[in-house]
């Protein structure tokens, strides 16, 4: 029998979360937790409820029932601003970039650097953007064009930079490598390892079973809005996880 290898107070605990859309229970009494310095994979078919569950944490949706605890304190997250207040940053599958704005404006969207007189300081924001991009994607040069002119990988690095720049403690990544080539996927994988070693807790929504086996410490599998189970990735085979996703079959190692 498997059990949670972590002890102490979890960084995030989502307890008994439910949310319904017009009578359809998208998430039905699901509990998950996340500890500092670990990557928890969220798996399941399209429509399994994993994105919906995580949007309750990022503030995009409001849960109907259940509780959310950050470092053991119960919190209310009603909108994305609340989530940011608790250092929860999200990289959405759609990237959530305003295509008509440049990288710096997107990175600081909603949190602009404001100079004297309340005017946004574009040069300061561009300078900060150059600094963080030098770390994340040294080849990035297109600072003064709308992000619609960027490649998929460049857009992704803008979205990641936005999440990383503001000292996230809890990072939510919704299929971060879905639109990327092999080289860029590798870069994201390395970044995840680096952030993990810095003590961030990461929720990773992912379809690619191999990426989950490589990157995650634990995996939570959902099906039809309910949790099938949680496994420690090093105790199971990818066959076991596939069985959970497709058939909803709990292996003995699940808890």
């Amino acid at each position, binding site marked *: 029998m498997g059990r949670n290898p972590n002890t102490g107070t979890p960084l995030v605990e989502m307890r008994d979360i439910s949310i319904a859309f017009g009578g359809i229970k998208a998430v039905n009494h699901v509990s998950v937790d996340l500890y500092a310095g670990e990557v928890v994979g969220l798996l399941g078919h399209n429509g399994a409820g994993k994105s919906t569950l995580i949007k309750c944490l*990022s503030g*995009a949706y409001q849960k109907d029932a259940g509780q959310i605890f950050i470092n053991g304190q119960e919190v209310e997250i009603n*909108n*994305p*601003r609340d989530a*940011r207040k608790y250092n929860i940053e*999200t990289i*959405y599958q*759609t*990237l*959530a*970039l*305003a*295509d*008509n*704005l440049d990288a710096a*404006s*997107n990175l600081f*969207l*909603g*949190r*602009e650097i*404001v100079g004297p007189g*309340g*005017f*946004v300081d574009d*040069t*300061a924001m*561009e*300078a900060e953007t150059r600094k963080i991009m030098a770390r994340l994607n040294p080849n990035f040069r297109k600072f003064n064009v709308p992000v619609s*002119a960027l490649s998929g990988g460049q857009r992704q690095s803008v979205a990641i930079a936005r999440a990383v720049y503001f000292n996230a403690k809890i990072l939510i990544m919704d299929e971060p490598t879905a639109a990327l080539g092999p080289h860029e996927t590798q870069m994201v994988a390395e970044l995840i390892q680096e952030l993990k070693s810095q003590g961030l807790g990461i929720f990773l929504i992912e379809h690619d079973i191999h990426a989950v086996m490589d990157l995650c410490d634990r995996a939570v599998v959902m099906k039809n809005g309910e949790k099938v189970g949680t496994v420690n990735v090093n105790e199971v085979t990818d066959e076991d996880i596939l069985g959970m996703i497709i058939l909803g079959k709990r292996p003995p190692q699940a808890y």
Partner: protein
Amino acid sequence: MAQQTTNLDPQAGALTRFLRATEIDTRLLGMVAALLLIWVGFHLYGVILNGKGAFLTPRNLWNITVQTASVGIMACGMTLVIITRNIDLSVGSLLGFSAMMMGMFQVEWYPQLVGLGHWSIVVLTILLGLAVGTAVGAFHGWLVAYRGIPAFIVTLGGLLVWRGAAFLLARGRTISPVDSNFALLGGGPYGSVGAFWSWVIGLAGCAAVLWLIWAGRRSRARHDFPQRPMWAEYFLAALGCGLCLGTTLLVNSYPWPKGIVDQYAQRHGITVPEEGLFISHGFALPVLILLVVAIVMTIIMNRTRFGRYVYAIGGNPDAALLAGINVKWMIVKIFALMGFLTGLSAVVASARLNSATNALGTLDELYVIAAAVIGGTSLAGGVGTIYGAVLGALVMQSLQSGMVLIGFDAAIQNIVVGAVLVLAVYVDTLYRKRVK
């Protein structure tokens, strides 16, 4: 500290290098070119067919600036509305309603309390007009954002409702004349600032241009960003100052008509010499109002969070929401701002007409939308500039004035304006495709 200059590709053509170094927006250049083409075209038409061009004269250009003011002020607000993927069809009717409220207030209601010609009439009248516009705009925005009714429908309803309300206020009567101080805001000889103050304004404009260029260099230097080459800075400074002083010279070379001069001289005990007195109009008040609106709105759009969020909402409303922007409240504020500017436009329009009529502002919504769209605002959202909208309004007014000057009748004017609108958007679409 070593100073980098903007990376210039020596292979590129001279024009490309020039545009890159000066960072002049090519679309702005295209619009200015179109405007000059219209101006020169109408002038030459007059020269060739009548032996005398009437378009490129101080008098005509001065009149065009005054006639542009009302639509131009509203086009600044419409740009924001369209950038955020909405539309406001009610501005013409709201202008009429607001003007009628102001007309009734300053002619029939308030003078009964304080007497005609009281100093407070003009102040309270303007405040009332602005308040009416802002309140109605905010109401429209609330219906759109918080009640989920499409802006097209809300403002289409508004178009009918406010025109009807304007009629009911005075049962269709024309309210005239308005308060004499109020009428100054419409322009005319007395509603202009004269030669001296026009030079002050022109020189202040020059100073602002130089300061902007200097502040830009300083800010880039502080972060070690590449600078424009010095010759490009000098060119921009010369262009900006030339534009400011040239416009001042233009408005100052349009004198008061003889009758007004005589009247003025008589009242002030001045003897008019044999050859006549040359008293300059200078900038008209409505033009100055438009300039202030355009400058303030440009600052709002480029340098404040509010402006940044307007663009973000237009580019991707979902992303704006996820970034923590209160999108609904922003929509209310944008419509309220549109209403405020409509109220201001109503001040200018009714002052210029020296009356409030039930038809004031009819079809203005279409001219305002056309001005914004000709100015490069995309109906798909996310794209648009204030200077574009003002230039668009100037293009529309130039076309109309030009056609009046060469004697086209109203039917042909409508056909031309409509065709130009479609053509302008087509050219813009082609341009965008090429840039991509």
